[in-house]
């Protein structure tokens, strides 16, 4: 087993453990911090995949901006710990676990089980070139110029919507 594979497995286990800690933690604040840890792990996985731009954006936009917003709201609402997120199995929870198990199984069968044969091991020759800011920027400003501009309208609509929603009273 090579060094790269060991590194990937360590990061993958860290990502899964932090995700599980996120959904089992009863304090919302700690939950947010575990999710930030998970996003950092994913950023490292993006770096292994030679997607530098996406890794940087992941840290800046997701871990930096979106999760700070979550942290801010959790602190603003000052929520108490949930009484018992680990209550004994109810009818609803049993169905929930069953459903998620089926989803996992279905996806795994769809992508092919991890340790089965016939894996694609070699990344494409251009893998290093396409992850750079230059390559993504060129594609974003030529081929995808129109969606890029529409995104700005979407963000403007979001800003206006947030201000309207967070106003003192609905009228």
């Amino acid at each position, binding site marked *: 087993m090579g060094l790269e594979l060991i590194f990937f497995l360590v990061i993958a286990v860290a990502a899964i453990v932090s995700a599980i800690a996120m*959904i089992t933690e009863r304090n919302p604040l700690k939950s947010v911090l575990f999710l930030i840890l998970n996003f950092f792990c994913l950023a490292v996985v993006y770096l292994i995949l030679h997607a530098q731009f996406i890794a940087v954006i992941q840290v800046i936009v997701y871990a930096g901006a979106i999760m700070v917003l*979550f942290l801010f709201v959790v602190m603003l*609402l000052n929520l108490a710990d949930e009484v018992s997120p680990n209550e004994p199995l109810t009818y609803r929870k049993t169905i929930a676990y069953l459903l998620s198990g089926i989803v996992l199984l279905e996806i795994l069968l769809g992508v092919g089980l991890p340790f089965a044969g016939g894996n*694609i091991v070699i990344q494409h020759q251009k893998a290093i070139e396409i992850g750079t800011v230059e390559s993504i920027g060129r594609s974003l400003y030529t081929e995808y110029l129109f969606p890029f501009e529409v995104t700005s309208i979407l*963000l403007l609509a979001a800003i206006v919507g947030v201000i309207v929603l*967070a106003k003192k009273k609905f009228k």
Partner: protein
Amino acid sequence: MINVLSEIPLNYYLTLSAILFSIGVIGVLTRRNAIIVFMCIELMLNSVNLTLVAFSAFYGNTNGQILVFFVMAVAAAESAIGLAIIIALFRNKMTVNINEINIMKW
């Protein structure tokens, strides 16, 4: 041109993504705190992003990473709006427990 020889098969990335997605599904279905449910949705969005980046690297196509860029822009807008709705709900009902928020139920 350098030949990128990685030891990690594509399936490993897809499996990691599938596991993270399923954890997100469990969170959405079992937790009752609206903010946690919302965070689980972010987790699911991220696992799909991982799939897109993995395919993009393995097939040498930029489009997957461009799509991830747009997903992140939409996720930013979505989380801002969603949190504003949660704050508005909290102001009216003084709770974020989704069992107690049932004014839209028939």
